[in-house]
C-alpha cells in the first residue's frame, strides 16, 4: 500500500512536469527562465518548495523532539521575517537588473556589476562547492526515507535512483517551467500532509492538550534548551536565501516585478503551515515514542505515523518527504546546469552565434551529468555528509554582503568582493574544522553561531577592501544605478 502511494505520487509529479514541456518555445531563455512568464502563485509556491527541504518535515520534528518548541522561533519564524525582506529588497531589484541587462545567472550579474571576469570565476567555484553537498544530502535523504517507509522493500540505492530519474526527466524535458509547475504541486503536497498528519495523530493521542500534558515542561518553553545568543545569531542563517543560485534563477522567471508581491506577503504564513505541525509532532513524540537517541530522533515522525495512523498516511508522508526533496533538488540541479552552460560553456567555448537549440541541448546534458554524478557520489558517501548540509547555509549566508553591496553601494569594488570571498572561504573552513569534532559547536562555547562571526568579518572585508581600492569606473556603475533605481529610494 505504502509503495503504491509513493509510486503513484512520483507518476503524478512526472506528469505535471511533462505538462510544462507543452509550452516550451525551444529557446535558451525559455528553458532557463521560462521566458520570464511565471505568475504570482506559481512563483510563491516554487520559491517556497525550493527553499524548504526535507529538513522542514523530518529534521524539524527531530530537533523539536530534543529541544522543544524553541526550534520554531530559532529556525522558522526567523526565516518568516528575513526571507520576505530579502525578496523585497534584493529579489525585486535583481529581477529588474536581470531583465534590463539580460542576465540569466547570478555569476553574470556580479561579473558585470564589478566588471571582473576573474571574480565571476571565483564566485562560480565557491557557489558550486557550497551547493554540491546540499544536492548530495537530498539524494541520500530520499533513498534513506524510501528504505525506511517501505520497511526495506526499496533499498536506499534504488530509492535514490528513482528520485534522480523522475527529476532528470521533467527537468531535462521542460526546464525551469516544468520545474516550477512540479514545485508548485510538491509545495502544496507537503503543506497539506503536515496538517493532515497533525490532525490524525493528535486525535489518536487524545487531542493536543492531552498529548502535551505528558511532555517534559522544559520542551514547552523557548529558553530551556536554546541560549539567547544562539537565537539571536541564528537569525542570520536565512540570509542565505539571498545568495542561493537556485533562488536567483526562480526570481528571474517572474513575469513582472509585481509578481513578487504575493510571495513577499504570503511566505511567513506558508512557513507556519509547514513548521507548526512538524514542531508539535516532534514535541509530542518525545513522550509518545521516548526511546529515540541523537540523530535517530529524525525518525520520530515516521515512528508516530506507523504507530498512530493508518498505513496510507505513511505512504502519503513519504510522498510529502519526496516532495520536499525533489522540489529543492530539481531547482538546484537546473541552476547548476545554468551556471555551467552560461558561465563556462557559453562564455569560454567558441559558441558565438550558436543556435538556441544547441544551448538548450548543452543545458540538458549538464542536468543529466550532474544527476548521474550526484547519484554515484551518494552511493559512496558516508552519512556524516549530512552535517555538511547545515554548513552550506552558513556559507551562503556569509556571502550576503556581496549582493547588498552590489545593489546598494556604488563605491563597492571588485577588490571588496574578492575580500569577502576570501574571508568567507578561510573562516568557513576554519569553523567547519572546529565544529566537525564537536557536535553542537558554537563560537568559544558562547552560544553564538559561527555565521554571525563570518558575516561580520565579511562586512568589514567588503568595506575595507572597497575603500582601500580605487573608485569604480562610472561607466560600469551607471549601468546599475543610472536610472535612479537605488538613488530614488535612498533620497526619498
Amino acid at each position, binding site marked *: 500500500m505504502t509503495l503504491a502511494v509513493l509510486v503513484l505520487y512520483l507518476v503524478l509529479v512526472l506528469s505535471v512536469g511533462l505538462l510544462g514541456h507543452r509550452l516550451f518555445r525551444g529557446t535558451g531563455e525559455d528553458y532557463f527562465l521560462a521566458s520570464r512568464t511565471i505568475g504570482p502563485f506559481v512563483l510563491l509556491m516554487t520559491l517556497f518548495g525550493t527553499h524548504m527541504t526535507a529538513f522542514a518535515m523530518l529534521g524539524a520534528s527531530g530537533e523539536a523532539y530534543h529541544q522543544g518548541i524553541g526550534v*520554531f*522561533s530559532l529556525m522558522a519564524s526567523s526565516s518568516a521575517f528575513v526571507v520576505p525582506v530579502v525578496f523585497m529588497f534584493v529579489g525585486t*531589484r535583481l529581477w529588474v537588473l536581470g531583465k534590463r541587462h539580460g542576465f540569466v545567472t547570478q555569476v553574470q550579474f556580479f561579473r558585470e556589476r564589478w566588471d571582473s571576469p576573474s571574480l565571476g570565476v571565483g564566485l562560480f567555484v565557491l557557489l558550486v562547492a557550497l551547493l554540491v553537498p546540499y544536492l548530495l544530502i537530498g539524494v541520500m535523504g530520499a533513498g534513506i526515507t524510501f528504505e525506511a517507509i517501505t520497511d526495506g522493500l526499496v533499498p536506499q540505492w534504488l530509492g535514490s535512483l528513482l528520485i534522480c530519474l523522475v527529476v532528470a526527466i521533467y527537468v531535462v524535458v521542460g526546464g525551469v517551467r516544468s520545474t516550477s509547475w512540479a514545485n508548485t504541486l510538491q509545495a502544496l503536497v507537503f503543506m497539506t500532509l503536515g496538517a493532515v498528519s497533525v490532525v490524525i495523530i493528535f486525535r489518536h493521542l487524545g*487531542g493536543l492538550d492531552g498529548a502535551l500534558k505528558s511532555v517534559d515542561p522544559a520542551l514547552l518553553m523557548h529558553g530551556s534548551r536554546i541560549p539567547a545568543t544562539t537565537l539571536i545569531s541564528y*537569525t542570520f542563517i536565512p540570509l542565505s536565501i539571498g545568495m542561493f543560485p537556485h533562488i536567483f534563477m526562480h526570481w528571474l522567471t517572474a513575469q513582472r516585478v509585481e509578481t513578487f*508581491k504575493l510571495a513577499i506577503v504570503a511566505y511567513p504564513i506558508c512557513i507556519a503551515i509547514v513548521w507548526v505541525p512538524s514542531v508539535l509532532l516532534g514535541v509530542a513524540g518525545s513522550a509518545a515514542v521516548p526511546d529515540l537517541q541523537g540523530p535517530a530522533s529524525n525518525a520520530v515522525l515516521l515512528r508516530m505515523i506507523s504507530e498512530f495512523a493508518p498505513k496510507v498516511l505513511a505512504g502519503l508522508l513519504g510522498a510529502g518527504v519526496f516532495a520536499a526533496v525533489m522540489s529543492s533538488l530539481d531547482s538546484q540541479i537546473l541552476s547548476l546546469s545554468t551556471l555551467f552552460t552560461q558561465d563556462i560553456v557559453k562564455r569560454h567555448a567558441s559558441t558565438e552565434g550558436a543556435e538556441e537549440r544547441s544551448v538548450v541541448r548543452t543545458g540538458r546534458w549538464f542536468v543529466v551529468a550532474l544527476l548521474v554524478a550526484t547519484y554515484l557520489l551518494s552511493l559512496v558517501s558516508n552519512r556524516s555528509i549530512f552535517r555538511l548540509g547545515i554548513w552550506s547555509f552558513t556559507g551562503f549566508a556569509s556571502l550576503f554582503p556581496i549582493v547588498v553591496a552590489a545593489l546598494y553601494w556604488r563605491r563597492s569594488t571588485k577588490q571588496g568582493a574578492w575580500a569577502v570571498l576570501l574571508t568567507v572561504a578561510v573562516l568557513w573552513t576554519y569553523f567547519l574544522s572546529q565544529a566537525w569534532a564537536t557536535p553542537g559547536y558554537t563560537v568559544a562555547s558562547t552560544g553564538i553561531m559561527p555565521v554571525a562571526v563570518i558575516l561580520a568579518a565579511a562586512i568589514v572585508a567588503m568595506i575595507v577592501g572597497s575603500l582601500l581600492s580605487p573608485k569604480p569606473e562610472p561607466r560600469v556603475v551607471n549601468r546599475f544605478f543610472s536610472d535612479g533605481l537605488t538613488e530614488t529610494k535612498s533620497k526619498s
Partner: protein
Amino acid sequence: MNRSLTVAFMLAVLYLLHNDFWLWRRYDTVLGGIPVGLAYHIGYCLLISLAMAFLVRRLGATEPADR
C-alpha cells in the same frame, strides 16, 4: 517620518519582537493546548505577513524601470 525611516523602524520593531525573551520561561498553553511561546510565534508570522502587505502597498514593490 520619511519612507526609508518608516521601513527601517518597522523592520527593527519586527526583529525585536522576534526575540520574545519575556516568554522564555513560560510553558502554559493557550487556544486548546498550544504552548504560549509557540502561539506567540504563530501570531508573529501573521504579523510579519501584515507588515509586509503594508510595506508592499506603501513601496509598491515596483521599480522605476518596470513601469
